[in-house]
C-alpha cells in the first residue's frame, strides 16, 4: 500500500478513534458538572481529570467522598474500578512491549477503554505491523478522545453550579454506568458476575465504611471466575 508509512498509522488511528469523542465528550462534561456540584474547585477538578484520566474511577471516588467514606475505601474502590486498565496493559504488552520505555510510559497513561478497544482490534487483524507503527496507531486513536476529555471536563466544571436540580443529574451516573456495563455482558460468566454483585450489594448495603461495594465487587469477580471455570470444564467457553 502506498500509504503504509509509519506516520500514516497515526492518522489511521486518529480516524478510527474519532467516533469515541461522542462518548468521551459528554462523559467528561458530566464529570466536570458533578465535581463542581460536589464542591470541587476548578483547579481540583482539572488536576483530578488530567492526572487520573479515567472517568469511571473519578466518578466513583466523587460519589464515595460525598457519602463521607473513609479515604482508604475511596481509593480502594476507585482503583478497583480501574483494575480493568491492568488487563488492558497486560493485553497490549505483547504488541507494544518492544517500544522504548518513555513511549511505553506515555502509552500507559493513555490506556483507556477507547484506545484499547481500537488498538487491540487493529493489532490482531494486522499482525505484521512494526512496533513503531503500532505505537503511532495507538497514539492516534487516543488523540481526539484526550482533547475532548480535557476540554469537556472544563466546560462541565464551568457550567457546574448553573445546572438546575430539575435536570435530575443525580441519576446521570447510574444511567451512564449501566449503559457502559451492559455491552460488556458478553458471556454467561459476565452475567453471573453482575447478578451476584447486585445481590450482594443489596444485602451488604448496611456495612459500615461503604464496605458493601468492595464485598459485592469481590463476590462478583469470584462468581464470574468460578462460572468461567465451570463453562471451560463443560467445553462451553469460547
Amino acid at each position: 500500500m502506498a500509504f503504509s508509512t509509519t506516520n500514516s498509522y497515526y492518522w489511521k488511528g486518529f480516524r478510527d478513534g474519532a467516533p469515541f469523542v461522542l462518548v468521551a465528550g459528554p462523559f467528561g462534561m458530566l464529570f466536570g458538572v458533578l465535581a463542581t456540584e460536589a464542591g470541587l474547585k476548578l483547579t481540583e477538578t482539572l488536576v483530578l481529570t488530567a492526572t487520573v484520566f479515567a472517568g469511571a474511577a473519578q466518578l466513583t471516588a466523587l460519589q464515595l467522598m460525598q457519602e463521607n467514606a473513609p479515604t482508604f475505601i475511596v481509593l480502594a474502590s476507585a482503583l478497583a474500578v480501574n483494575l480493568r486498565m491492568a488487563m488492558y496493559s497486560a493485553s497490549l504488552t505483547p504488541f507494544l512491549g518492544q517500544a522504548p520505555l518513555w513511549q511505553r510510559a506515555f502509552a500507559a497513561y493513555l490506556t483507556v477503554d477507547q484506545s484499547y478497544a481500537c488498538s487491540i482490534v487493529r493489532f490482531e487483524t494486522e499482525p505484521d505491523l512494526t512496533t513503531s507503527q503500532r505505537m503511532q496507531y495507538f497514539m492516534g486513536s487516543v488523540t481526539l478522545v484526550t482533547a475532548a476529555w480535557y476540554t469537556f471536563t472544563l466546560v462541565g466544571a464551568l457550567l457546574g453550579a448553573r445546572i438546575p436540580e430539575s435536570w435530575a443529574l443525580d441519576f446521570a451516573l447510574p444511567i451512564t454506568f449501566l449503559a457502559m456495563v451492559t455491552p460488556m455482558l458478553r458471556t454467561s460468566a459476565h452475567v453471573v458476575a453482575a447478578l451476584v454483585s447486585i445481590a450482594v450489594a443489596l444485602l451488604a448495603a448496611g456495612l459500615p465504611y461503604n464496605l458493601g461495594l468492595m464485598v459485592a465487587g469481590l463476590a462478583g469477580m469470584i462468581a464470574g471466575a468460578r462460572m468461567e471455570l465451570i463453562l471451560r470444564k463443560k467445553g462451553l467457553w469460547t
Partner: protein
Amino acid sequence: MTPEQTGFDPVTLWTVIAGLAAGSFALRFVFIGLVGDRPMPDWLLRHLRYTAVAILPALVTPLVVWPKATGGALDLPRLLAALVTVGVGLVTKNVLAAIFAGAATLYGLLYLL
C-alpha cells in the same frame, strides 16, 4: 438527606487525587512497563476479567434502589429509567443508545408523574 456540599477538606481531597493518580498510572504501567513479556497467572487474569462487570453494578445498585434525590425512597421514574437503560444496552450493545433511552425514560416519567 443531601445537604449542600461546600467542598471537601483539602487534605483529604488531595490525598485522594494523589493516590488515585499514582494508583491509576501504576495499574496501567505494571504490565506494559514492568512485566514485559512474562506470562501472567491464569487465575489472576480470570478474576481481572470480571472487575468492571462486578464493581460497577455494585456501585450503581444502591443508587437505583435507594436514590438520594428522594431521600432514599424507591422512585418509579429512576427505577424504570435504570431498567430501560439495561434493556436497551443489552439489545443494542450501544452505550449512547442506552444512555439516551434511559435519560428519555427518566425525563418522560418525571414530567408525567
